[in-house]
Structure formats: C-alpha cells, structure tokens
C-alpha cells in the first residue's frame, strides 16, 4: 500500500477530469516530508491529449489524500498532513476565460432546456396513451409493458434530478453532460414508439407467451436479461443485406413470460427463386451476459470497484459460463486434470485458482434455457459465398422447445449486386501469440503462448474480421516461417509485415548497429520470399522526449538495411523523429493535422487507444476504427491488443489497475468472439462500402454525372457521428443508383 497527496483536475465544460499525485510513500517515514504538485500550465497538454482540444477551462476542484494498492484485511494506516498551501502565480485573465468557456456554455445549454422540456412533454403524452391501453393486455404482457413504461418514467426523473443537482453544486453544465442528457431524451424518443409497437404486437398475438425483439446488431445500447425497457421493436422478420464474400451480423432477442428449457434453433436454406443459399451461410450463437469490471477512459465509463452484468461473449454453448447471481461470480466449465467436468470461479481476484482452466466452446449451437420473465439475445452472422447470385433470399429460423415447434422467425437476406472494394486502411493489432516459445505465464491459457493450431485459428479469425496485418511477436527462425505459411493459408495479404519479434533498440555503437542491420536484412529477405514488400521493425513503445530521440541512429540503420521503423507514440513525435519514423501509431483521437505532417514526408500514421481493445462498446469500435479513420485521413489502425491479460486473460477482477484487453478470448482450440470484435468488423466494412462508392463516383458514366455529383456532395458532408446503420443504408443506395 502507498499513500500520496494528489489533486483532481476538472476540465469543464467537458466531462473529463484527472488525478495527479506527488511521489507515493510506501513505508512509514516517522518524519515530516515535504511534497509539491504542479498545477500550472502543464495541464493544457493533458487536456489536448485527453480531449483533442484546449477549449476547456482547467482548475483543481479538490486536493486529496490517496491510499492505493492491494489492501490486506486489518491493515492500518496513520497519516498526518499539515500546512497545505497553493503557491505561485496564476495566469492573468483566468476569470474571463472561465466565463467564456464555462458560463457561456451553460447559458447555451439552458436555452436548449426549453426545447427539451417540450420534447419530454410530447413523449410523456405518448407514454400515457400506451400505459392506458395496456391495461387490457393479458397479465404477463401487461406486466412487461407497464414495467417498461415505469422504467422510462424513472429515467426521466433521474435525468432531471441529476441536472438540477449538478447546477446546484457547480452552477454549470458540462457539454458532455448536456449531451448525455440529450442522449437519454433520444432514448426515450426511441423507446416510446417501441412500446407502442409492443402494445400492438401483444394485442395482435394474445396467445403468445414470448416476444421476439429485433434490435440493431451493432449498437450503443445493451440488452440485459432483466433490464427494461428493451431498446428494440418487436417483430418476426430479421432483415439484412450484404455483398458476396461479406460477413454481416444481425440479432434477435426472445423475452419469455415462462421459463423456456431446452431451446434449440434450426435455420432453413434461404431461397430466391431458383437460387439457394444453404443453411450453413447463417451462423447462430448466444450472446452471453456475464460479470465484468468497470471501464475507465474512452468508449464508456463504469466506475471501478463494482461488478456489472455486460453482454460480451458469442457462444455456441451457453453453459460454458454459469453466473452465480448471489455472489456476482462467473463460473467456467472445464475439464480438470482428472478428466471430469467442473465449474471454476473465474472472477475471484485470487487468480491462482485459474491456473489450469482450459476453456473450450462447442462447435455446434447447444440447447439453452431462457428463465421466466427474462430476455435472451441471439447472434446471427451471415457469410455470403463469393459466388452467390444477387437477389432477395428468404428462409426461417425455427425455435424449438424440448424438441417441439414453438415459434419461428423469417430471415430476409438481400445479396447485393456488387462486390466491395478492398479496405482503404491497414488494420492491425498487437498480437502477442507465438509458437514454440517457453511460456513464463503460470496459466495454461494465457495471452501469448500458443500451439500451431491455436495460432492459425487466431490468424483465421482475424482475417475473417478484416484484420489482415497483425503485428507478429514471433522471433526470427523456424517459428517465423511457420507463421508466414499460416498467414498465407488463412488468406492474409502479403503487403507489410509488422514485427516486434525484432526490435530496433537505441544503440549508437557501430558494431551493434551492424548486427542490427544484418538481422533486418534477414527479415527483409525472408519476408520477400512470401511476397511482403515492407518489413517494419518496432522501436520503443510510447516513448517521449529524449528516449524517443535516442533511437535515431538505430532507426537510420534499420532503414539503410531495407527495413522501416515504426512505434506507438504521441503528438510531438513528428517534430523529434518524423523524418525517420516510417509509421507512427498515434494514441487517442485521430488528428488530421498530425496525418498531414506524416504524409508530407511520405510516411504513414495509424490510430490506437481510441479506445484500447476490450471495452464492450461495439458501436464505438465501429465508428472510431472505421469512418473516423477515413475522416481523419489516417492510413490505418493498430490497436492494443487482440488479447492481453492483466493476470488471467479470462478473469476481469485480478488486476487492480487494468482490465484485460480482449477482442477475442483464447481457448484450447481457437477463440471466442465478442460483441466489440463484431463491431470492429463492421468498421472495416463501412470503409469498404465508402471506397466502393468513391470508385462508382469516379467511374460514373456520362448519363449518371448528376447523381455522381450528388453522391460526392453527400460523401463530403457525411456526419460520421450520425447513426451508422442509416449511413450504411445510404451508401448502399448511392452505390446502387450509380
């Protein structure tokens, strides 16, 4: 345990804040120790780094004494503090700045409140109509609809109270709080019409015992078993469209008044006239909701120290993970060394219990249970064969309970009459997995040591998600040759090979530089045999200042030997080493101005940490690693990491600092996908549709010049913060028009 003095920085009107501390004290000092913390202009850089803007006011809203570390039961701390003081001089004109950035923003938000009140009133009136007419519904449905309506009322009350409370305590509203308020109102605007449709659905089907909801697949809203209202409309037709060769997700959720046991799903062939797509083009999985830790940073926020139910895993066998609701635990089924199946707690901070865990999902969808008054989400992935004939296909999903027909859904799949252009961006992850390496991990399933079969399954999974250029951590040798063979087998294009298996270092010793050059030449030679045009050698990770500049001689040596230099870093790197750094992987929100700098010298810029891999926010991954890359003029993305365990990679509660970074969870024979990973695949596809549209615009025949001009205008004005599903539909419409 350590103790330190700290300060909390507030950045109104943004929602961001940040803590900084003096040097932590880890042992009893038995004497008075002086400390100091800067609270001056260095915070401007932090604001830009965190928010991408300095249009915020920066102030310290509290000083604090902070105890940190893994507390032992009964551990006692006695600490005295004295003579606290702020010294130095503030910048002149601060009051004016505060007024401009904070007070004026608040006034603007107040003006909006009148309009919001009008909208609340409108939704309230519509909600009351639903409540009134729901009185006549059968009991089970009535309870569901009225329960949903009550939650909407509660949402409004909480929202209103929060804003009023904030004004009382701080007298200003942060822009992002106002945005959150608006988002909640928008949620009400979505939910109330859905409730109306729900009433109509229940009224028209009084004998039904279940409701099927049809939410958007990649969305910012989460579906939980007991949470109301469900942010989706009821229905019985799943509609999706895709091009030949594409993977496309869809989802549906079943709410049942009574418990449904032994639920199985059967997909039929899909037909369009004489053309048939066999049932195998549709893959079905259950969406597993389990306990996860808090999130900090971009892409969502859940305070730490608690356990949250979160939909994340896409499973064939729902029983692979059991939830212990009373103790908020995740229990994983695995075969122990004696060969018996048992459940192990994978949410205990005492991670030693997970050493021998060997997770393995089923190959086929297994029967599952839907508890009474509960919602179960199912995930559907259509993979359209490359030679599929365009047209409207129709099939169905039969829902069986205990082997008997219970309900069914219609699938309407449109195979579009064009092929997608390749992705205009390079998509890469830090991918720790290696073969043949002796693992230092105490865990059988970890994030780095792999069998050949496991590694190939991971590469295949990445390629199928549009991530075609992962960084290899494999060292030079036989293992590397096997990895290059695997990449070829799974269909990864051989363009650029990014490696951390060979590092550049920062030596300036001529002998060492000569050795480095020889190694680089070996890499370049081997990579060329497999068709790779470039080999990128990694520098220091996230280096700054002198450490960054110290690599110049090594990077020059790498480049002279035919390799290229790359590393993750921050703004300011270009000014230090931009002439030698062929590729920067730039942290946080992509900045087009940074892209301009690197492009001016013919170098590349990728995005990462916007957010890091892992948070269960599929829509954020779709937006930030898709259209945002295009809008920011970035060349690609290289996020950290495909999977990186802090502690055990399956246990989210065994590290005090970080949550595990996982897009796909490793198993004994491959990986288990997640919702955020499916969101990432849609990011890649969005930009492929955009590239296809761009090509159509350029190649439009004379007769379609007017439409092409309109399409170009639409593309230029595209608001990438809008509804991505709507944007996707519009892109398809434009492509079909041209």
């Amino acid at each position, binding site marked *: 345990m350590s103790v330190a003095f700290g300060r909390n920085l507030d950045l109104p009107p943004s929602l961001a804040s940040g803590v900084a501390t003096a040097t932590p004290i880890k042992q009893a000092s038995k004497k*008075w120790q002086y400390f100091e913390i800067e609270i001056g202009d260095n915070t401007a850089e932090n604001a830009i780094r965190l928010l991408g803007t300095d249009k915020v006011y920066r102030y310290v809203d509290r000083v604090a*004494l902070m105890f940190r570390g893994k507390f032992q039961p009964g551990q006692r701390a006695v600490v005295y*503090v004295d003579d*606290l003081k702020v010294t130095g001089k*503030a910048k002149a004109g601060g009051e004016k700045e505060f007024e401009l950035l904070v007070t004026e923003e608040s006034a603007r938000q107040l003006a909006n409140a009148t309009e919001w009140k009008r909208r609340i009133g409108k939704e309230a009136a519509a909600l009351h109509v639903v409540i009134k007419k729901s009185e006549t519904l059968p009991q089970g449905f009535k309870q569901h609809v009225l329960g949903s309506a009550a939650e909407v009322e509660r949402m409004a009350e909480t929202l209103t109270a929060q804003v009023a409370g904030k004004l009382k*305590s701080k007298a200003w509203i942060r822009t992002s709080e106002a945005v959150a308020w608006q988002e909640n109102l928008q949620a009400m605007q979505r939910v109330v019409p859905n409730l109306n449709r729900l009433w109509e659905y229940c009224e028209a089907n009084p004998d039904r015992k279940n409701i099927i909801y049809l939410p958007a697949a990649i969305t910012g809203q989460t579906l939980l078993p007991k949470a109301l209202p469900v942010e989706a409309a009821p229905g019985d037709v799943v509609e999706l469209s895709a091009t030949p060769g594409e993977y496309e997700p869809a989802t549906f959720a079943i709410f049942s008044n009574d418990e449904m046991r032994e639920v199985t799903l059967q997909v039929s062939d899909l037909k369009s006239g004489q053309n048939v797509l066999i049932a195998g083009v549709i893959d079905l999985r259950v969406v597993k909701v389990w306990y996860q830790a808090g999130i900090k940073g971009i892409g969502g926020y859940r305070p730490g120290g608690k356990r949250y139910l979160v939909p994340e895993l896409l499973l064939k066998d729902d029983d692979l993970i059991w939830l212990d609701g009373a103790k908020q635990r995740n229990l994983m089924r695995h075969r122990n060394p004696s060969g018996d199946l048992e459940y192990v707690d994978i949410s205990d901070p005492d991670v030693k219990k997970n050493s021998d865990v060997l997770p393995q999902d089923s190959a086929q969808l297994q029967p599952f249970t839907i508890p009474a008054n509960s919602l179960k989400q199912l995930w559907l992935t259509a993979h359209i064969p490359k030679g599929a004939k365009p047209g409207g296909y129709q099939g169905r999903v039969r829902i069986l309970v205990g082997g008997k027909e219970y309900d069914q859904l219609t699938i309407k799949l449109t195979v579009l009459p064009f092929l997608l252009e390749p992705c205009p961006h390079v998509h890469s992850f830090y991918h720790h997995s290696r073969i043949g390496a002796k693992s230092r991990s105490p865990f059988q399933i970890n994030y780095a040591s792999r069998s050949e079969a496991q590694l190939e399954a991971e590469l295949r999974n990445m390629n199928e998600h549009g991530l075609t250029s992962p960084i290899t951590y494999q060292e030079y040798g036989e293992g590397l040759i096997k990895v290059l063979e695997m990449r070829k087998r799974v269909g990864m294009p051989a363009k650029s090979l990014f490696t951390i298996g060979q590092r550049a270092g920062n030596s300036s010793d001529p002998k060492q530089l000569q050795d480095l050059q020889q190694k680089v030449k070996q890499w370049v030679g081997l990579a060329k045999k497999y068709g790779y045009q470039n080999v990128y050698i990694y520098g220091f990770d996230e280096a700054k200042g002198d450490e960054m500049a110290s690599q110049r001689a090594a990077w020059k040596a790498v480049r002279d030997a035919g390799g290229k230099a790359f590393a993750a870093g921050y703004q300011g790197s270009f000014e230090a080493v931009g002439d030698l750094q062929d590729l920067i992987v730039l942290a946080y929100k992509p900045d087009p101005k940074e892209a301009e700098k690197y492009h001016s010298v013919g170098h590349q810029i990728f995005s990462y940490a916007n957010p890091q891999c892992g948070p269960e926010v599929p829509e954020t991954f779709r937006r930030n690693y898709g259209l945002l890359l295009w809008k920011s003029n970035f060349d690609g993305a290289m996020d950290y990491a495909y999977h990186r365990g802090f502690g055990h990679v399956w246990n989210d509660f065994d590290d005090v600092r970080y949550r595990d970074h996982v897009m796909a969870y490793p198993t004994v024979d491959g990986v288990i996908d997640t919702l955020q990973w499916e969101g990432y695949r849609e990011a890649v596809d969005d930009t492929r549709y955009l590239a296809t549209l761009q090509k159509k615009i350029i190649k439009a025949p004379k007769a379609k010049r007017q439409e092409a001009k309109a399409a170009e205008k639409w593309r230029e004005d595209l608001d990438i913060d809008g509804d991505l599903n709507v944007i996707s539909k519009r892109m398809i419409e434009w492509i079909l028009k041209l």
Partner: protein
Amino acid sequence: MKTHVSIVLLVLLGGMGLYAAPPSPNYQQDFEGEEGMSGWKAWAQSGENTSEVNFVGSSSEKSHSGKQSLKFDLTFHEGSYCYWSSQALKIPATGDLKLIGYIYVE
C-alpha cells in the same frame, strides 16, 4: 412521464443563477483552532467494505508548524483504493501554481 418533474427542473435552472463563482488561487490549511475535519471528507473507495475510520480530524499529536495537524487513522479490509478529499475548491490550473504541504506517515 410526470410533467411536473420537468417543470421543477426549469424552475431550478432559472433560479440557480448561471454565473458561477470565479476561480481563485487562494488555498491554505494549517488545521489550527477548532476546525475539526476542516471540510475534509471521504471521496471514493473501491467498495463499501474497503475501509473503516478509527479517527479523522484535527489532532495535536503531531504538527509540522503550530500545534495541530490533520490526522487520518484508517483500517482497511479489502479493495485497492481509498481517497479522502478537501472541501470543494476552484484553483485555476494556470501559471506556475503549485500545491505544497507536509505529510507524516506513522
């Protein structure tokens, strides 16, 4: 939806006065006199059962200057963080300002 809730909100918005107090670089605490906890309070901790307070407040057992200091005597049970904070402040984070002080860990 309860419309009266919205009306209450607007009354609050209107009545609160939007012009926030300006920031000030003045902050000093020496914990002398009858200050008691001097505005300090528990801020955040990793869970409900993280810590137990034996004593937090002005104490004459130790002092860097004067006769008193602010004493924290806590017993921890579980978790990974426990923060105590001062009263609400509004210190501008500009210029060459620094927070300084003294700490004694027993």
